[in-house]
């Protein structure tokens, strides 16, 4: 049992944090958000480092690492609230790798991994981050996936100006025939990881602010009404982090646990992201409500991420279906004994 990153993974995290602290400051994020553009220079740099292809197999031009490493990058890019098409490109690549034909993989993975093509992934008819301007969009519809082109995207201005959003109508493009659920579950973990990063940044900014801001000659962070709010933000963030890291690990190591782990991660991270960023605005007081302060970028990013591929309620419904599916098929569970037909988590199995 070791619930910690390897030294290499820690190194990826540190490198990403340091790089983005320099290259993706809030001044940069603001500049691109207000101009309605991505940070092309940053995107080029990240592509040069191989980030978009971190979880793409080496035979397709990627680095051949796993969802854990991808989640680390998503978390850090969320922390920076970076104005890049990373999430869409990386999750599109994940889905094509998990569910694409050989031809589809050959056509798209090398380009997405190299950052030469941009991708996006989302639900048909719903807002999809990074879709406007994307070369390829993986669209989930009725339990299956389709591969749509940039021409199928209708650009939409969403409340998160750090990204270019769009919608793709159902039925567009060609089918992506493989395991749609496995592809989407991996993408859920990536989005959850970004939400963890967004939450962590909102918490860090808030802690720094309430230590500094004085009222009644006292730092407001000394008041328990404020400090307990911060503690609650930490509880949300760390809970979402536990669930997300577990989901990332399951994606790589125990895929049979992924459906539940991914739903839990997305449910927890969606709720945490919205709660923590809302709390950050409140703890910043009046300044937090202004365009000038940077907390609103995080709040807006969290709203769209929380909604992407279904919100907390959607994923709790998935969890509820999994729970119901594990129940004993017999009408009276108290009377039944373990049988060969019972699943390992069924109440019929020896009491857990």
């Amino acid at each position, binding site marked *: *049992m070791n619930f*910690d990153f390897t030294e290499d993974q820690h190194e990826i995290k540190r490198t990403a944090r340091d790089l983005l602290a320099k290259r993706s400051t809030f001044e940069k994020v603001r500049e691109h958000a207000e101009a309605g553009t991505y940070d092309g220079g940053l995107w080029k740099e990240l592509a040069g480092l191989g980030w978009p292809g971190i979880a793409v197999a080496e035979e397709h031009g990627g680095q051949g690492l796993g969802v854990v490493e991808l989640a680390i990058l998503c978390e850090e890019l969320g922390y920076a609230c970076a104005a890049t098409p990373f999430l869409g490109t990386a999750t599109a690549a994940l889905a094509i790798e998990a569910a694409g034909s050989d031809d589809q993989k050959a056509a798209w993975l090398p380009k997405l991994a190299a950052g030469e093509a941009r991708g996006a992934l989302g639900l048909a008819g719903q807002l999809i981050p990074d879709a406007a301007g994307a070369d390829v969009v993986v669209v989930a519809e009725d339990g299956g996936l389709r591969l749509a082109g940039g021409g199928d995207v209708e650009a939409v201005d969403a409340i998160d100006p750090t990204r270019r959003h769009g919608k793709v109508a159902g039925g567009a493009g060609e089918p992506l025939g493989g395991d749609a659920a496995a592809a989407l579950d991996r993408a859920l973990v990536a989005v959850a990881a970004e939400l963890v990063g967004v939450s962590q940044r909102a918490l860090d900014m808030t802690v720094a602010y309430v230590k500094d801001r004085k009222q009644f000659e*006292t730092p407001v962070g000394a008041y328990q009404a404020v*400090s307990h709010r911060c503690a*609650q933000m*930490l509880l949300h963030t760390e809970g979402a982090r536990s*669930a997300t890291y577990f989901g990332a690990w399951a994606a790589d190591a125990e895929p049979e646990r992924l459906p539940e782990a991914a739903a839990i991660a997305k*449910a927890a991270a969606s709720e945490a992201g919205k709660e923590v960023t809302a709390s950050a605005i409140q703890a910043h007081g009046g300044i937090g409500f202004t365009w000038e302060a940077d907390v609103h970028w995080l709040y807006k990013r969290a709203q769209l991420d929380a909604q992407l591929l279904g919100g907390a309620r959607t994923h709790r419904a998935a*969890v509820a279906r999994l729970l*119901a599916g594990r129940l004993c098929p017999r009408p009276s569970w108290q009377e039944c004994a373990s049988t060969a037909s019972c699943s390992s988590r069924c109440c019929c199995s020896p009491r857990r």
Partner: protein
Amino acid sequence: MDLTFNERETAFRDELRAWLAANDPGPRPEDADEDATFEWMRSWQRTMAADKWAGVHWPEEYGGRGATITESAIFFEELGRARRPLPANVLGIVMGGPTLMVWGTDEQKERFLPHILDASEHWCQGFSEPEAGSDLAALKTRAVKDGDDWVVTGQKVWTSGAQYAKWCMLVARTDMDAPKHKGLTYFLMDMEQEGVQVRPLRQITGSAEFNELFLEGARIPDANVIGGVGNGWKVALTTLMNERSGLAFFLQVRLRQLLDDVIEEAASRGLLDDPVVADKLADLHVKAEILRLTAYRGLTAIEKYGQPGPEGSLTKWLWSDTNQQLTSFAAELFGDWAYTAGNRWAYELMRARGNSIEGGTTEILKNIIAERVLGLPRLK
């Protein structure tokens, strides 16, 4: 990252599972019959001790198995999973013994440790007082030197199992002039004497898990000072740090089982088709999983870095919060049946109110998180 148990941990778990399958203390006596319940748990501890399962995290020289912190967590998790009770002297095993191992003299270790594990001497904890709850260092119970003895006067409260205890981990003030954290001394007090009066404290559940202790001239030989005179605060912190080390996993599994039972009961009543019910149960499942995972993250932090990370202070809060939500929702879901005196869910509903108070109130935990994890200033 590897969230599977290694070979040694798996072997430990499998051996324990086989043992738990073969050993059963039988049905739990009625809640109201505290004496019978205690005897049932004591006899269970003897069964465990006979096969060296009573104090797995204790070093082998003291009768344990030298289990790692992960194995210790596995132990409590499996105990809960098998729906077996804790050993009767859990305070002695989890808190008292480890404190003695750090601070006790060789004579003290030899005298006290063996009787903790074999259940021949029960232990209780005399820390809290009516005027010293969250502010433990404000305690007023006094110990005054008289020849080779200390003479103790004062009052303690929330003392679980005091009526069965031979020894009490007692913190008392020995220097009235020193600053409040400095004038304290940690003793082992013999409970079987005139100067110690035990009065049961009835809780909102109707049962009496706890007691009040009235100390009027109770005598403690100087040889029973632990860790030196005036060093009581540090020794007490060792005890408190051990409080939830492995127990967190027992509580986490108990919550899991309670939730499984609610889901099964709800299913048998056809309530799972109600989307509001399904949403709430799924939410509780998400929280229970986060609790389990966060507890494991805490273990890794301790194993790798020698100290708990921020997770450590979060699990108790998350557990009490979730358990309260769970029991409240269960009662609402099952209606009048669950509000009928003697019903299991009625008991759980009332017992859960204690969760956010016992072992550190949620308010104190939030203060600790704010100050020590987030580094926020303290209100002066």
